């Protein structure tokens, strides 16, 4: 038996399709061949690395959170079992024993398990607004990217796949939930509203909930209990920022169980690495200016770290191929590092976006090269409001002249649904634009409406070709 059979068995091994006999056959084929043993290990490692990077349910924070819980139970002598199992193509394994994972993970596990169970599915909400590229995973794991407004939703996960996407869900009791920008939200099928916001911006207007059945919203590091209120949440793997506009919301930090009640016009920020008491701060006067932090605010973009990595590989390959000496490579690399340090910048990355009337991606199958920021994520963040005379100052460059789309998304001041606005500008090379907010047009063909008085949540720019080489070196909002 030769290489063909080995490769066939190895491929099947990684696809999880080998019988016990075939596994033994593979072991036999590799027994006296260190090269084949090495290849098996390389393939298994490669498989694991890719799977890890593609599965949000296996990220660092959930892994650490589950480990901390297991250690807690282990050191407290709890007799409760502590085994953890994920299935790659079928969701979570039901042998998982909930006590060892965080509350957030429990809710996610329960809801995901329910979604992938066979049988009837209860519709719990309806999609009442949809814009941009959306993906729905529900009904036994079935994926649907053609979501029409009015569609009923059962348990499942709604993903917004582009910074300019948005969706609003309405529940039977008229509670509405809006997510915008890049976001991922899981709904349970319970009569009680249980949601998991993996990342993104969410605003909700919650009707009074039945006693003992408060709405529960989980993020990676916090749990929110809501009985009836208006609030908004910004979540990512390391941070949850809750802003309450009306009523009260109870927030629990999952790392230590500390709780606080957040009232109207108050805000609380939970960070994954918080060691200090949970803070509740009153919303100060809203800001009318914002300057993008290219490292911290980025939601989509090719960062300096990525550029460094790519350049590192490039010079390394050049050395390997004899095109460059080791000393030259080191000099070149250090010059590149210094150049990056001298000027912070972000490059555009390809993103699938739904074609829009008049948009730049319409004739390219919905692919745009995009840079996007979430606004704001700072520790002392207060809402950034657009004024009548606000303007954006945008600095950057393109390699070739092109039309570039600039856009932003806002929420109403009360946290309800907002809108998205854009303008298309012809750019030649380096640019330093000052664009009044008033020239941006509302995206959903409802005519030009002012964004004045609304909270800025996302900013983006995009071009329709990689070769345009769109880069951003600065974005700021200000008013005279």
């Amino acid at each position, binding site marked *: 038996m030769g290489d063909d059979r080995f490769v066939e068995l190895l*491929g099947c091994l990684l696809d999880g399709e080998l019988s016990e006999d075939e596994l033994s056959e593979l072991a036999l084929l590799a027994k006296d061949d260190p090269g084949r043993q090495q290849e098996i290990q390389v393939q298994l*490692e490669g498989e694991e690395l890719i799977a890890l990077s*593609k599965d949000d349910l296996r990220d660092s924070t959930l892994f650490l959170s589950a480990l901390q819980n297991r250690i807690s139970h*282990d050191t407290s002598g709890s007799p409760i079992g502590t085994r953890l199992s994920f*299935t790659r193509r079928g969701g979570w394994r039901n042998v998982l024993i909930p006590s060892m994972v965080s509350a957030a993970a429990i809710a996610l596990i329960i809801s995901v398990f329910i979604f992938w169970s066979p049988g009837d599915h209860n519709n719990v909400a309806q999609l009442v607004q949809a814009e941009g590229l959306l993906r729905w995973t529900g009904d036994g794991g079935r994926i649907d990217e053609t979501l029409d407004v009015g569609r009923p939703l059962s348990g499942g996960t709604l993903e917004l796949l582009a910074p300019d996407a948005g969706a609003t869900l309405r529940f039977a009791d008229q509670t509405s939930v809006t997510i915008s920008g890049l976001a991922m939200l899981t709904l349970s099928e319970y009569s009680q509203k249980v949601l998991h916001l993996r990342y993104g911006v969410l605003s909700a207007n919650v009707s009074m909930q039945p006693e003992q059945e408060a709405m529960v919203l989980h993020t990676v590091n916090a749990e929110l209990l809501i009985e009836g209120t208006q609030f908004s949440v910004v979540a990512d793997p390391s941070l949850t920022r809750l802003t309450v506009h009306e009523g009260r919301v109870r927030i629990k930090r999952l790392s*230590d169980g500390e709780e606080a009640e957040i009232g109207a016009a108050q805000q609380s920020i939970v960070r994954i690495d918080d060691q200090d008491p949970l803070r509740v701060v009153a919303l100060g006067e809203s800001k009318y200016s914002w300057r993008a932090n290219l490292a911290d605010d980025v939601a989509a973009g*090719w960062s300096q770290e990525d550029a*460094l990595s790519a350049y590192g*590989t490039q010079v390394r390959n050049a050395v390997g191929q004899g095109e460059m000496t080791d000393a030259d490579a080191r000099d070149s690399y250090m010059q590149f590092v210094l150049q990056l340090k001298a000027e912070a910048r972000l490059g555009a990355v390809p993103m699938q976006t739904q074609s829009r009337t008049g948009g730049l991606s319409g004739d390219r199958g919905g692919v745009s090269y995009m840079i996007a920021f979430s606004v704001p994520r700072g520790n002392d963040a207060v809402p950034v409001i657009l004024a009548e005379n606000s303007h954006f100052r945008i600095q950057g460059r393109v390699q070739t002249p092109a039309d570039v789309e600039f856009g932003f998304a806002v929420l109403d001041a009360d946290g309800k649904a907002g809108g998205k606005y854009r303008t298309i500008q012809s750019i030649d090379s380096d640019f330093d634009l000052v664009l009044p907010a008033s020239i941006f047009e509302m995206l959903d063909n409802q005519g030009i409406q002012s964004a004045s008085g609304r909270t800025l949540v996302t900013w983006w720019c995009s071009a329709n070709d990689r070769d345009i080489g769109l880069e951003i070196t600065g974005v700021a909002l200000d008013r005279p």
Partner: protein
Amino acid sequence: MKHSNDKSIKFDSLVLEHHVRLRAFVRSLGVDADWVDDLSQEAFMTAYEEWETFDSKRDFGKWVRGIAANIVRNEIRKQSRRRRILNSDLTHLLLNHHGQLAERSLPMTVVAIRACLAKLNSENRNIIQGRYVDGFSILELADRFGKSAANMRQILLRIRRQIRSCVESHITMEDYHG
């Protein structure tokens, strides 16, 4: 933190630093994909329990991988229905092979993996998307991309090799930078 003290803070940061390579390592010993996280966590739990015996001048990543290798070794002795490995002969072989190799110790990061995936050409990126996000089988992927199943397997083998090599070179370059 539930186990809040200096030890725990230090330990948590080491977990965040080393979990990616540990999980890849555990899988490379022929552990069932569904049990990789469980077994990796067990290795970290043992490391936490044995923390007092750990010399901080030593390489934590190497230490915890050694613990994981011992846990995997014990799996071989278990009854088949309770095992978390795919096949005893295969794991035995891979454990021995691992023991003969020079130990790599620098941590891997998900950022590095994603940077490497971004460098794939668009067809290969779509194949990875289909395989690891959309969950298509080899036959479904082959059908979608107009290739034979054998060809698709070869392509995936190449991509995995490429990604792993890229991630290693990414780490080396970061080290070089340092």
